[in-house]
């Protein structure tokens, strides 16, 4: 009997549920070295962001609810002062499947320079020009797990519009983007239901992903003639077309080599085009008998629409060097350039980060635009926007 009580106590002391908070507060300052193109823009921008995360887990870890709100205040850019729910979802794990319902973020693909295959979430562009930040996407996601790979089915019942910097923000298009006057191809507008399916599998050294998306494209087109927005500012208006996209992503991991490729075919607005990213990452481990690793990254970016492409990367080469110190502070630096093969446009970037205290991380980011061709409409709006950004994050 005594043994039974002890056993019960032991079982009860192992929690079958968890309830925890974590998150971060980040302070950011951005310095632009050149005069802005518009008098409504500034040289220094300060900003604070807050992203708590709540996790409630039960059923022995087979079910959980995650809630991740996000909020940012920006000193000058009223559009960058914004809030979002990055994640608010319920997960249920079954033996051979997983169900996720709610607002979530999903990442697809393997490349570093751009993410062609990754089309589920809308880009939160006010967060950063690299497009790595995403808005929470409402979805029902059912994953079927088989010996021959995982099949993910997605129903996406609501569309999120892309965010754009405001009139007072930098790294924006010359004409301001009027997010109050948006056009959709679908008469259901934001309520159009999108579908997606993705198969992923690992076979020895190979990791493969094949996906198809049917719905409203997250990448907007824009009206060609500027019109006045609600505040009387000359602006371009976003147009969201329906699209069908099939994507393939591949990675071969051969010793210190990572060979990567992403290929898409997109049918949109009575047009069909192909785009691709392909390249490698090679790492020299423990250079000079130290604990440091140096990785070389090279990717080729292609879009068969060439100069009509809606991205600036239609025939470009990305080269980068990643230094990882593998020290107790996780010090790392990534230096890279994306070079247009047809003109002199170069986009240089530096990203460095280091933990400076147990719960504090310092990140420095810089971008430099040189030789920007004036006919490159997207990049030419950024030609004065070289910047250095310092971010101090406190994690709890």
């Amino acid at each position, binding site marked *: 009997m005594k043994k039974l009580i002890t056993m019960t106590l032991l079982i009860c002391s192992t929690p079958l549920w968890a309830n925890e908070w974590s998150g971060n507060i980040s302070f950011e300052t951005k310095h632009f070295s050149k005069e802005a193109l518009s008098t409504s823009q500034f040289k220094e921008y300060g900003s604070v962001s807050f992203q708590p995360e709540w996790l409630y887990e039960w059923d022995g870890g087979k079910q959980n609810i995650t809630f991740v709100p996000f909020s940012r205040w920006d000193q000058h850019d009223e559009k960058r002062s914004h809030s979002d729910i990055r994640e608010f979802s319920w997960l249920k794990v079954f033996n051979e499947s997983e169900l996720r319902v709610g607002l979530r973020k999903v990442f697809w693909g393997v490349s570093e320079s751009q993410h062609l295959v990754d089309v589920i979430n809308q880009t939160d562009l006010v967060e950063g020009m690299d497009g*790595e930040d995403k808005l929470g996407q409402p979805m029902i996601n059912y994953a079927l797990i088989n010996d021959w790979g995982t099949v993910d089915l997605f129903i996406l019942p609501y569309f999120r519009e892309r965010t754009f910097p405001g009139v007072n923000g930098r790294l924006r298009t010359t004409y301001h983007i009027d997010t109050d006057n948006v056009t959709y191809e679908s008469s259901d507008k934001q309520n159009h239901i999108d579908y997606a399916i993705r198969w992923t599998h690992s076979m020895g050294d190979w990791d493969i992903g094949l996906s198809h998306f049917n719905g409203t494209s997250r990448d907007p087109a824009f009206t060609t003639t500027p019109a006045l927005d609600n505040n009387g500012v000359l602006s371009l208006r976003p147009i969201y077309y329906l699209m069908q996209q099939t994507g393939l992503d591949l990675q071969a991991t051969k010793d210190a080599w990572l060979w990567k490729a992403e290929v898409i075919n997109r049918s949109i607005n009575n047009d069909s085009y192909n785009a691709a990213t392909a390249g490698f990452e090679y790492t020299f481990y423990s250079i000079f008998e130290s604990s440091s690793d140096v990785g070389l990254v090279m990717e080729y970016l292609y879009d068969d629409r060439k100069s009509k492409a809606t991205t600036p990367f239609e025939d470009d080469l990305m080269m980068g060097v990643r230094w990882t110190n593998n020290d107790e502070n996780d010090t790392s630096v990534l230096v890279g350039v994306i070079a247009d093969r047809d003109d002199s446009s170069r986009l240089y970037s530096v990203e460095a980060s280091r933990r400076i205290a147990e719960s504090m991380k310092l990140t420095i980011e810089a971008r430099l635009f040189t030789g920007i061709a004036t006919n490159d409409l997207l990049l030419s709006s950024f030609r004065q926007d070289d910047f250095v950004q310092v971010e101090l994050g406190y994690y709890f």
Partner: protein
Amino acid sequence: MKGIILASSLLVFAGAALAETAEEKGLAIAVEADKRDQGWTDQATTSKMILRNSQGAESTREIRGKALEVEGDGDKSLTIFDTPRDVKGTAFLSFTHTLKADEQWLYLPALKRVKRISSSNKSGPFMGSEFSYEDISSQEVAKYKYKFIKDDKFDGRDVFVIERIPQYKKSGYTKQITWMDKEMYQPLKIEFYDRKKSLLKTLTQHDYKKYADKYWRPGRLEMINHQTGKSTTLLWKSYKFKNGFSSRDFDRNSLKRAR
């Protein structure tokens, strides 16, 4: 007559023992150690790493791990980081193999991205510590060539001293000397020699406890790097065996929801 038979059979045994080379004896001990540690099926652990630089400044990492025993090959493991807080939720999935490269994936929670990573860095530091990936990966008999050196005492306990040479060509070591406890068949101390054959690190394993009536596990590991003056303490806070894990708990889907 009976006595003569007994005596002669003893002689035969002694002869067999004498004929055993140092390599055979070393291998036999490794096989025995492996045999005694078989059948644990799976385990869940929590641990804490304390990293010290040469000035003695400390930083800590809290880690949870799950492992699944795979017969005839290296084990599968899933490692989740709780601290430092900026890497909280980062998870590492590894299918270890005895002689070919391991398969490894990393989950980055901020990007929701699963990255297949190269495992060529078996000799690289694990989380900035003095433990390398090969130090913490599963110990399989086929990973080394063995040579028994001598019987000895370590910390008042009887030990076998065995030299082992890593067979994986990208190992960071040319040899290791292990002090293997004769009762537990677990190492009490390991010396690691680098590619230039000089002493690089010393590991000592302390506070052994028996779990599930069979499996000896240390409570504390101390790794000292003699060349840099840095050291790492690894505290095993809990071990739990036979959790009913399956390979389903060690796939890319489970990596994405590792908490």
